């Protein structure tokens, strides 16, 4: 059996005031584990983007951090609304962020592309009315 660290962080929809807290704790955990600077930077960026996505777009969900000796995995699971066209959602500059999010300076349409760019492996599964699951892994050398 491999060693595994798993931590779950609930993320509330629309909670802009606490957005980024899960990311801060995740970064702290990885620094304590001694994860190297380069991986840390990739995880930081992707983690904040995915946390923010849960706040802006989802009806609520959770962020799960898993650490294994060879990789770090971030999983974002929400309870809806689901993405009708994933390919479109992955396009740079495309955003469905609402007025409130845009007023706060979000919704540049770079969230998902940024996650994909920073993760070693990126997977997104979504079903309208059910929810979205994003799985990102980051290889540890």
């Amino acid at each position, binding site marked *: 059996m491999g060693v595994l660290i798993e931590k779950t962080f609930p993320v509330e929809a629309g909670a802009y005031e606490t957005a*980024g807290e899960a990311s801060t704790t995740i970064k702290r955990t990885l620094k304590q584990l001694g994860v190297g600077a380069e991986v840390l930077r990739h995880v930081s960026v992707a983690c904040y983007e995915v946390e923010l996505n849960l706040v802006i777009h989802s009806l609520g969900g959770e962020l799960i951090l898993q650490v294994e000796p060879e990789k770090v995995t971030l999983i974002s699971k929400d309870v809806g609304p689901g993405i009708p066209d994933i390919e479109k959602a992955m396009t740079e500059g495309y955003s469905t962020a609402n007025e409130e999010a845009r007023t706060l300076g979000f919704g540049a349409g770079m969230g998902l592309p940024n996650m994909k760019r920073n993760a070693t492996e990126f997977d997104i599964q979504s079903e309208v009315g059910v929810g979205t699951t994003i799985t990102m892994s980051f290889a540890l050398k």
Partner: protein
Amino acid sequence: MEQKRFHSVRLERDKCRACTNCLKRCPTEAIRVRGGSAHIIDERCIDCGECIRVCDYHAKVAVTDPLSVIEGWKYKIALPAPSLYGQFKNLQHISQLLAALKELGFDDVFEVARGADVVSRAIRERLKKPDLPRPVISSACPAIVRLIQVRFPDLIDHIVDIRQPMEVAAMIAKKEFARKHQVEEKEIGCFFLTPCPAKMTAIQNPIGHEKSAVDGAISVMDIYGPLSAALRKAPVVEELQTSSDFGVGWARSGGECDAVCPTESMAVDGIANCIRVLEEIEDNRLNGLEFFEGAACTGGCVGGPLNFENTYVARNWIRRLVDIRNAELNVEAGMMTKYNLYDSRRILPNSAMKLDDDLVEAMRKMERIEEIYATLPGYDCGSCGSPTCRTFAEDIVQGNAREMDCIHRMKDQLRVMAQQMVDIAETTRE
């Protein structure tokens, strides 16, 4: 790794009352109270001086050199920090202060503000390079650089590879004095008049280069009395000031940004505020930001714990002394190439926050920490001697604390034991 760790910030054990004030304020969780007094974990301390500021019993002190240190040198040059100019109420001309310094036994004075002029120019050049990761982070505050080494190792690449104004000033001062008076550089001692302990540490234990060009640091607090007396007598006989208003402006938070990159830059003061913004930089939240100036002290260097004057009063005096609207950096031709302004050594991460060098072992420790943490009350009261319940759990796992150091856990344990005694008493009665 640094081999020898010099720290300016020290504890005077007999004054320490083992309260939790410093414990709570330390930005790198470097303080523990054990055995009736605080102690500082050397590997984690960044010499920011927060604990000096919050200690009501003056048990935290900064070790600096006494003024008498200059007597060991044939030629002595004072390097006043720009923030020194903000310490005197009725100072009309900076030259007057510089003349007063000469009365204290210095053969010459070289303004660190002029070093700041040169450094400002060098940073402007660096900012033209698009390949440097953005935002470029100032290297001026040594406590912030060390904070990044300990808590933000992934931002080390952002730190600009240019030496601090103090270093640059010392290099230029020595070379110019040696040439002018036909003496050898090694006979000249340069002494920084410092507002903070972090600079003292930076001299003894430089970060981006091998040896400091500065030979000692005298605290502003120590020199204030004699300097005030000299100032009253010192006439303004000559125009000694050579620094620009940009250079002097470095004394306060935002001054470096003004001199380097007035538009897409951000100046943050106070170490807790710096931590918050560095977290955002780490997450790529500050898109478009070109330059970040962080100062550990509130207000910037005028807020240094070794200053005499109140931060805000000093900041106000500086404001009255400088006018950057028409300022121009005073950098002579050739200065950019004649001196080695750049770091000669890579800045390395400080691994003091790591649980273990081995990832798997670190993961095992983290599992244990989570288990222990779940049993703790979460009051973060500090009574156990660790700053928070979480750090207490870490300390237990690292073998530096015992579970019964927690008075709340101890109380629970006593309750169980008391109940057991009652139970025993009841059974024996029957």
